[in-house]
């Protein structure tokens, strides 16, 4: 199994089916090749310490029931195999702070914002980002050399991440299939499931809810209010938007719905019926055209920021430079923003032609390069002044990347150019936005516009009470995804509707791969086999989720027609199937799997 498969024509095609099956088999049994001889096998086991693992998660009842239940399932099964696992609860912002900024954790359970395009993997796992703070590679995952059993087209994991960014069409599909297989064998994080995105909306006061994805700006534009309706009253279960509106903050949000409303980007996400169509439509850019890997962009003329400053090509250029280095070259080392890293990395260079024309050269294919068009465009004047005020005298200026005050400050009031502008807020209670009358969408044909003077986002304690409130006419919509436990509480008689949008965010179990024993992919794979994703989707999510081995849209998941083996979920995980049935772990089988690499003491505790 250690020897590569036949080097003849198969190697040029990438991974052969046979090699894949072999790799799959290794996935099933972590000790088959015996290539990692643990030190413990020579050391007296009694002198070793028991393995303990802290699982970070959100508070269950008050934050994220589904995530907390996944954590608990994992905790119980880890205990069953002799690992001293505990649950460590943090608030939403503290969890992200611990994982993304302090990077001080063993395992965490959370929801990844992901993206409609699988290129998000590049930001999440590329080794260049292993030592940066932010959403870029929080797993600190680095190109492993261990998987010599399988012959992939790319010599390394990084190579696979990079290749899918440059190739196109069918070639990209193959590259992604291969990347997903590498991922499944490595398990830098365990993908659990993609939950359905349901929201509850009131149908008496507004119509047109189906037109845009309610996690994006288009969902809030073009709604048709009934006569006399002056305000869209949305409920949020997450109070962070009342505290921090900094578009760069890593901890203030998982996904940027509110940022989307306050800021514009060159392009905006749109749901399409046809899989082959691009999901991006021009937004702040009136249009763009690709010539090779260079895009010529024409901005809409006459756009302004909320403070009245004109928005020009200089602001666009500035935004990409600033996100790549938030110190604007003042520090000895570049300080990339803790967000949008993957998108911005696709931009090679920018040339401003005039106020409304610029070209962006991408280091990637147009498809991946266009993802860069989704970042919020920031006002140059404001942010460069903020950098200036923070650069102190003659002292050497080297702010900590990802955590310095510019990227963590609350940025209230925010100044963007988006369809809504900041009006008021009360911490922990509400955020009030008002229509930006000068927004380009207002009065422009074919562009959905803000149709109500006010948008009020009010904090509500939870999904069940949010449903109660909307059903009784106390609010118009939920902005957060409904937790599935409360779906049964939606009344059939009330003028409400459950709206479903395309879902790509996924629950996952992340490892700190710099730490022992999580640095061992065989250990991670063994842990993955303690998680019954099928049972979780059935019981925790009441069937309103899709269990996954590859956390991407179905169209990107390699199936049986693919060059490589299928990663489609068919009753069980194709690579790391659960060791047991119906959520019940086969403890004996699980223990013997762990015993292949690690030792047990006399009391049945797993030793490190």
């Amino acid at each position: 199994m250690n020897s590569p498969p036949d080097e003849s024509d198969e190697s040029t095609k990438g991974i052969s089916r046979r090699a894949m099956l072999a790799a799959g088999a290794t996935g099933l049994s972590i000790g088959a090749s015996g290539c990692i001889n643990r030190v413990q096998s020579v050391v007296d086991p009694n002198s070793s310490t028991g393995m303990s693992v802290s699982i970070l998660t959100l508070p269950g009842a008050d934050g994220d029931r589904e995530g907390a239940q996944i954590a608990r399932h994992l905790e119980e099964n880890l205990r069953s195999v002799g690992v001293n696992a505990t649950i460590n609860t943090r608030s939403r912002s503290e969890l992200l702070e611990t994982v993304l900024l302090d990077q001080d954790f063993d395992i965490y359970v959370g929801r990844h914002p992901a993206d409609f395009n699988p290129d998000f993997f590049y930001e999440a796992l590329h080794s260049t980002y292993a030592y940066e703070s932010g959403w870029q590679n929080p797993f600190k995952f680095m190109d492993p050399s261990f998987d010599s059993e399988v012959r992939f087209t790319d010599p390394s994991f990084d190579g696979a991440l990079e290749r899918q960014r440059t190739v196109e069409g069918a070639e990209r599909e193959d590259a992604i299939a291969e990347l997903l297989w590498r991922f499944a064998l490595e398990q830098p994080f365990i993908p659990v499931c993609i939950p359905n995105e349901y929201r509850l909306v009131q149908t008496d006061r507004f119509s047109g809810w189906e037109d845009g994805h309610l996690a994006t700006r288009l969902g809030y534009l073009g709604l048709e209010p009934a006569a006399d309706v002056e305000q869209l009253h949305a409920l949020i279960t997450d109070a962070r938007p009342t505290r921090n509106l900094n578009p760069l903050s890593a901890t203030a949000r998982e996904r940027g719905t509110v940022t989307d409303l306050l800021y514009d980007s060159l392009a905006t996400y749109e749901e399409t019926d046809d899989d082959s169509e691009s999901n991006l439509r021009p937004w702040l850019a009136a249009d763009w055209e690709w010539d090779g890997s260079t895009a010529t962009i024409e901005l809409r003329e006459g756009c302004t920021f909320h403070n009245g400053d004109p928005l020009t090509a200089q602001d666009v250029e500035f935004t990409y430079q600033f996100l790549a280095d938030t110190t604007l070259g003042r520090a000895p080392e570049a300080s990339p923003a803790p967000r949008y890293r993957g998108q911005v990395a696709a931009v090679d260079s920018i040339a401003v032609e005039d106020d409304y024309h610029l070209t962006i050269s991408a280091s990637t294919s147009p498809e991946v390069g266009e993802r860069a068009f989704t970042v919020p465009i920031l006002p140059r004047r404001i942010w460069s002044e903020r950098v200036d005020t923070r650069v102190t005298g003659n002292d050497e200026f080297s702010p900590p990347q990802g955590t310095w005050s510019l990227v963590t400050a609350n940025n209230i009031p925010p100044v963007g150019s988006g369809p809504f502008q900041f009006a008021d807020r009360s911490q922990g209670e509400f955020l009030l936005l008002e229509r930006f009358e000068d927004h380009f969408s207002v009065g422009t044909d074919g562009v959905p516009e803000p149709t109500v003077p006010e948008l009020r986002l009010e904090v509500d304690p939870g999904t069940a009470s949010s449903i109660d409130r909307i059903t009784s006419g106390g609010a118009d919509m939920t902005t957060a995804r409904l937790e599935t436990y409360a779906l049964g509480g939606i009344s059939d008689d009330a003028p409400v509707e459950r709206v479903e949008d395309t879902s790509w965010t996924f629950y996952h179990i992340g490892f700190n791969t710099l730490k022992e024993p999580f640095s061992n992919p065989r250990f991670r794979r063994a842990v993955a086999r303690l998680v019954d994703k099928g049972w979780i989707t059935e019981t925790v999510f009441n069937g309103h989720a899709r269990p996954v081995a590859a956390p991407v849209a179905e169209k990107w998941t390699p199936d049986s027609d693919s060059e490589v083996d299928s990663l489609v979920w068919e009753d069980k995980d194709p690579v790391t199937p659960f060791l047991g049935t119906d959520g019940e772990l086969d403890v004996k089988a699980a223990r013997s799997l762990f015993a292949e690499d690690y030792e047990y003491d006399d009391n049945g505790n797993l030793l490190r």
Partner: protein
Amino acid sequence: MLTQLLLQVAVAVSILLSVALAGVVGRDRLSLLREEWKSRLRTSAPAIALLLAILLLNRIMRQQGRSLSQEYGVHMTEVFYTIEGEFVLLFQAIASPEANAYFSISYVYGYVFLLIFPVVAYAALPKTIDFRRLLIAYSLNYAIGLVFYILFIAYGPRNVFVEELTQTMLYDNNPQVQYLTTEVNRNTNVFPSLHTSLSATVATFAYQTRSTYPRWFPIAVCLSISIMVSTMYLGIHWGIDVLAGLALAGFCVSLSTYLVDRWSLTAILKQVRERVHEYRDTVTTPSQKNS
């Protein structure tokens, strides 16, 4: 939703109070209270002011405490969970819709009644010492609780044992209660359980005054035990929080006994006035010389 619930609580507690006042305190004491309330209030003014100040501080810290806690607090959920494990799940053995209703009512309505009743009952006694002692004990509970809440950040069991507690979780059965609890408390204010410490405080007072109010003693004990159990049954507190609550109650009751009547405010005021006079003399004398 909040106002509706507040109204419900107010009505229910008023009914309970009027029944209990008639049955426990008696008409004679109440009519005497109506005559003497002004003078009793004057004697007890410092204790009342203290309690009001602490409650106000508590209110302010609900917002400010967040940032203080983030700065100085220690995360304890994992520690509590490691120490006591699944202890609170023992109460799931008695889980039933009736128990849900009973403990939810105890936790919300019973608790408010348990705290308010003794305030009126002790105010109705000619001697104000128990009244003042109670107010001081309440103040101490809140004040010490506040410090602990800033220092210890912990989430209750409902945030860890979601599946096991689904049937009994307070907020699932009564989602609107969440509006009330988020209004008065943050969900990381868990250690110690103030529901426990204040209930135990009231029960201890009921024991100490059992010869005056013989009927109140058994009521207070039953109710406060129900409230303590309810905090664990409903998944709000850990066993450790309840234990710490009991310890806090013991401490506050003893300290209130020690503190009350130790200093007379009028005496202190007199002393301060004398000091001020002395100070003014020392300041003014040399300056007069200079001029």
